[in-house]
């Protein structure tokens, strides 16, 4: 399991780097797809089967296809060269390194995990074994429709709003066109 984690995490990390450093936009998109697929594997490792499926279907499937479409539409061949001495780049990288180190350090410092794989402190009722016994989707669905019903419904409304907004924006200046 540790080996699987190592490989998947490495691929995810490289994919993430690839998104930022690739010169061509299309390569960035492909690197992001790689990253997301690796992330789906990591979700499986974390006993989140349903999320792994959603990750592949929604993200890698729908969202990234949309991205590739737009890239093809707008700038199939655009390239961008990064100037390594640019102040913004240096500041950004330094801040990112600092951020990573501090947060990881804080995580190690503030949160302890017992050898049996549990946190100290409050532990929820959904142990992985229990979730597996009842079925991942069933437990998640029950949670969504009971405890998290309101956020769930609000999210559906958000999706509707986004769809309407996208249609409006895609129509361009509809008012002008109609005149």
């Amino acid at each position, binding site marked *: 399991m540790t080996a699987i984690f190592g490989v998947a995490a490495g691929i995810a990390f490289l994919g993430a780097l690839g998104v930022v450093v690739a010169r061509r936009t299309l390569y960035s998109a492909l690197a992001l797809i790689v990253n997301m697929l690796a992330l789906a594997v990591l979700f499986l490792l974390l006993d989140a089967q349903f999320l792994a499926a959603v990750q592949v279907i929604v993200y890698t499937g729908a969202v990234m296809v949309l991205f590739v479409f737009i890239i093809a539409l707008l700038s199939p061949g655009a390239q961008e060269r990064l100037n390594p001495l640019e102040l913004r780049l240096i500041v950004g990288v330094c801040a*990112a390194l600092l951020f990573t180190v501090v947060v990881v350090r*804080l995580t190690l410092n503030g949160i302890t995990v017992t050898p049996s794989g549990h946190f100290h402190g409050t532990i929820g009722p959904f142990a992985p074994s229990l979730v597996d016994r009842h079925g991942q989707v069933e437990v998640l669905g029950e949670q969504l429709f009971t405890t998290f019903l309101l956020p769930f419904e609000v999210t559906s409304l958000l999706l509707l709003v986004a769809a309407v907004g996208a249609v409006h924006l895609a129509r361009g200046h509809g008012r002008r066109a109609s005149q």
Partner: protein
Amino acid sequence: MTIGSTFATVGAAVVLGLPLAGFLVISLGGRRLPRAVVRWLGPGVVLAAFACVLVLLAATLLRPAADRSVTVMLWQWLQLGVPKVHGVPGALGFNADFSVTIDPLALVMAAIITGVGGLIHVYSVGYMAEDQGFNRFFAYMNLFVTSMLVLVLSANLVFLVIGWSMVAFASYALIAFWYERPTAVAAGRKAYITQVIGDLGLVLAAFLIFVSLRGPTGALLHTVSLPTIFANVGPGPHFHNGLGGSGSGLVTLVGVLLFLGAAAKSAQWPLHTWLPDAMEGPTPVSALIHAATMVTAGVYLVVRFHPVFQQAPIAAGLVAVVGIGTAWMAGVIGCTQHDIKRVIAYSTMSQIGLMIFAAGIGAYSAAIFHLFTHAFFKALLFLAAGNVIHAVHDEQDLRQLGGLRRRMRLTYPAFLIGALALSGIPIFAGWFSKEELLGSGLVLGPVTPWLWVIGVSINALTSFYIFRVVWTAFHGAPRSEPAEAAREAPKVMTIPVLILAGLATVAGFLEVNFAGWHPLNLFQAFLQPVVGVVRAHAAAGADAAALVAGTLLSVFGLGVAWLVYGRRLIPADLVSRRLPWLYQLSFRKFYWDETYEVVFARPVLRLAEGLTRVVEPNVFDGVVRGVRDAIGALAQDFRSFQTGYFREYATVFFAFAALALLFLGLRIA
């Protein structure tokens, strides 16, 4: 049937709610609301409130005398801080609910406000019929009635102050009702500014009571509830009780500040100058506000706060002296004025002065009884004068009237009854109340007999100036064309006048103890639970002598007026020729307006001019310019940061977020 608290709550809510609803509907309806609706709605809500007051009055009368005061909470308004922590009042504990007290005093006031007010509303339907601002007028009138009811019913200092100020505003709006007349606007402004000076006194007194009233244990109470205040202001077991005990500086200060408020409302010296100018308003306004209700609020305040004044003999003495002084001064001024409404206004000031005097010496029920009868006959005089003014097309100068007796066959007897009642001629209402009031002056305290002498001399002045009006306006030959062509007013105006005339005739009998079944007179007995009976009974002989003397002086004044203006046996300009300084003093109203002009208005204006010329351009504009220049210079320096590239902003943001996290991490680690 007894007056349960639910009953009182509903009753008070209806009494207050009806005029308020009228105000809201009429003012929000504006011009769209047809006059036919306003004509019924405006007086209707007030008369309905009056009916409700009568029900409450009946319910109160059915209770035993000791149990006639009910305080109920209509709603909780403010609840701030913790009033008591471990028995010690918190520094900021402050609770104010809208509570109302239904007790005999409040009911008498409410009955006057809604009853006389209702009649005046009916009268206004006729008087204002031709006016453009008909709806606006009734909106203001209903607002006024609401404010006045809040004032008299409130069982809470905060709402007392709110009602007090709302009354001032409604009065301002009504005085300046004809806002296209510059004089009316100026009069409204003058009245309002004077009221604000009075408000200041009342508010300061309220603050003082709030911060320094102590309970039986000597702990600060921090209360605004009037029943609690009155229960604790008197002497108690602890030496820190109340406001520092009888005659202390604190309670005297509170009394003087309260009286400042009362003096502004009741047009007492030195805050009296607004009342005559307030006659610029429509005549029904003069009748309602400047005769029957608003100006009596000062008397009500002193009587309501009598537990405070009983602890503050110096303040109470001041009240009495100012009251009698104002009464006398206004009486002298009233003799020489030419404007029919101004004469009545000065007579109001004079009569209110007498009430204030009575409240000052502790004859509370006499003060309220005179307030009660005065409301009838003074509203009657104003409304009758309004009929006259209406008939002669807004002519108010006595010298232009005359001979109206034969042209206004209903208004004339009504005005005559008002004049007789005001003068204190026997069997009319004023006689009972005024003689009781002056009689109590004679029997209370060592100094008051001297004040009584001044008081009875006012009787002569009063009957002189009011019969001067009767003879010049109604008798003789018409002295102008409008007076020649005068016609009686329509029914909607004469009927309220006649009702008031009837009341002004019979209301005095309320104070007669018919069968001697009770040690007190009727009205006195009714008010006793609130104000107590502090009247010492004088020897019957002294009482009777005072009565006879006062009545004779009234008749004397009447007779002089008859000789001068009726038979013309004494030339009218006798005083102005022989004693020109006295005449001028009276005619120029003791020069108070001029004094205030010189002492307050001119220096302030000059100061303001100086400030405009020197301080405004240099200090204020200078500061503003300086701030502008400083910000401009600063902005120039910071401008280079604003590149407009959002990713640079984001970089700075991210870098500082990381640094902040680092700082946080170091703190935790």
